[in-house]
């Protein structure tokens, strides 16, 4: 136990002595946490719209003003024919074309039927899907209003449609930041935790000091603990700074308790740092660690459920995701942040993280050998 004290003393001295590293470790995640949520935004606002109006009637004007007033679209051109509009799509100047046919008003009133032509540039799938969806719902609204005005009052009862009144639980106004900010914070902690834990040990391998450590009678579990504990402390501080930034910049404040959150964080760090350590026991140089960590971080982040829903992943991917701690912690964080979940609500994820942590740490201790 005494040797652990001297190890920790040494690690902290070294940590505080590398001022550049310490600065990077604090400033970089803060900047990322401030900028990334604004950039990584799903709600689509500036969809470029080209309109081809063959009708030039008051109804077509009303439709156009309703579409442009929605705030989702930016009217980039008013074209005379469809070819002109298609050219805009080809040059990437328009994302959507709304073509209003000739005699639009006339047919709508007399024959009660009219078709509109919508063409979508589907290169960016999400934008196209959402843009098409927004436009369809606006036209749907317009359609209902048009019926009310043009059709005899007696017919309204017959034509009454089912109206949907959605209620958004836990995030009433679908504030995107509530969803993405905790996720990005977890991602940042993940990157820092894995990298630092892995690099620290490999650095000693590279400069050769590990050899000197290995001829001392220090027990390897103490040595490993001495390596990990400073990064627990560091990660907890960075996480706390991250929470503060989330509150100040995005007004994201947990509904649940901080106690639950930090207990979960501890379980997560146990698994995460164990994983970093495991990587370091498999590499001899920092370059090798870098390649390994890069590969795993990519997989972890992509499959963590940060950007895509885990529920819609194929079964094998769900299993893989479940074996890594990141997805568990992102879900836990969102549950605590948005729902106010308690320890017993998140107990499944908590135990999963602890279990994964035992496997990773145990594996790392077994694989770290003082003797070759």
């Amino acid at each position: 136990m005494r040797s652990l004290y001297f190890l920790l003393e040494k690690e902290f001295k070294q940590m505080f002595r590398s001022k550049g590293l310490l600065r990077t470790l604090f400033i970089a995640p803060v900047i990322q946490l401030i900028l990334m949520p604004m950039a990584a935004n799903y709600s689509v606002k500036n969809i470029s719209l080209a309109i081809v109006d063959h009708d030039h009637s008051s109804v077509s004007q009303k439709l156009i003003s309703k579409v442009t007033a929605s705030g989702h679209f930016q009217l980039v051109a008013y074209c005379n024919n469809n070819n002109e509009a298609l050219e805009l799509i080809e040059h990437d100047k328009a994302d959507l074309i709304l073509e209003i046919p000739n005699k639009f008003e006339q047919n709508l009133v007399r024959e009660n039927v009219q078709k509109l032509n919508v063409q979508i540039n589907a290169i960016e799938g999400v934008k196209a899907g959402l843009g098409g969806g927004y436009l369809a719902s606006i036209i749907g609204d317009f359609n209902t209003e048009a019926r009310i005005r043009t059709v005899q009052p007696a017919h309204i009862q017959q034509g009454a449609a089912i109206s949907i009144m959605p209620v958004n639980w836990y995030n009433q106004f679908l504030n995107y930041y509530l969803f993405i900010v905790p996720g990005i914070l977890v991602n940042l902690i993940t990157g820092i935790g894995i990298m630092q834990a892995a690099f620290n040990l490999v650095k000693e391998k590279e400069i050769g000091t590990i050899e000197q450590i290995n001829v001392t009678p220090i027990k390897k579990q103490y040595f490993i603990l001495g390596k990990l504990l400073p990064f627990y402390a560091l990660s907890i501080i960075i996480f706390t700074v991250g929470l503060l930034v989330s509150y100040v910049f995005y007004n994201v404040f947990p509904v649940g308790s901080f106690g639950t959150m930090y207990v979960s964080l501890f379980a997560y760090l146990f698994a995460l740092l164990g994983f970093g350590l495991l990587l370091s026991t498999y590499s001899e140089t920092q370059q090798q660690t870098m390649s390994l960590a890069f590969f795993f971080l990519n997989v972890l982040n992509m499959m963590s459920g940060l950007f895509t829903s885990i529920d819609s992943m194929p079964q094998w991917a769900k299993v893989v995701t479940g074996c890594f701690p990141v997805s568990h912690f992102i879900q836990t964080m969102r549950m605590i942040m948005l729902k106010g979940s308690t320890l017993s609500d998140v107990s499944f994820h908590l135990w999963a993280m602890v279990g994964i942590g035992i496997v990773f740490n145990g594996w790392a201790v077994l694989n770290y050998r003082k003797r070759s």
Partner: protein
Amino acid sequence: MEAVIKTEHLTKKFGTFVACSDLTFEVQKGEIFGFLGANGAGKTTAMRMLCGLSLPSSGQATIAGFDVYKQTEQIKKNIGYMSQKFSLYEDLTVAENIRFYAGIYGLSIRDIKDKTAELLDKLGMQAEAKKLVGQLPLGWKQKLAFSVSLAHSPKIVFLDEPTGGVDPVTRRQFWDLIYYAADAGVTVFVTTHYMDEAEYCNRVSIMVDGVIEALDSPKNLKQQYEAKTMEDVFYKLARKAKRAEI
């Protein structure tokens, strides 16, 4: 005399490559034992086995009475080691390095203080106590590393090319430290490429291609091989080497 290092048929193989073959020798307490050989002869591998860093493939060895297979942790308490690569922390100061290593060997805070003062005094480095080790010249670093490896008063100290790249004056000072330690009863097991240093040893073994070809005092070896200096002895033996560097 009591033997503190005893090996019998100690062998290390890496796959089909035999790095050390059938090493059998004894080193007495307080002896300065020179372990010579060309690059790739297997010196470092042999030393790593004796320190408990590398598991032997076959054969027996005891260090300070402890078995290299089963009692490596006891061995580690009783030995000091200074590797070919400089292995103090360059981002810690001289005093911090001494404190750290003395601390993990279990010295009390009080003993650490006394030891630090004693070491700095012996090395004449009081003024450098608060300097980062990375800023010291190589010769000083090596002397410091040697002293740190002795901080926990081991019975045996293993030195792997401790004076590589060090100027002749500092090398001389380094050997003064070695003599000083040997006089205090510490057994010194040292590898070197400098033949003048081989002359300073009580006994010398010369390894060629993983095998100990000669083992005796420098004086006897020179007689036996009809050579004037240890350098000539080394040439006569090492020329037989067939193995390339590893």
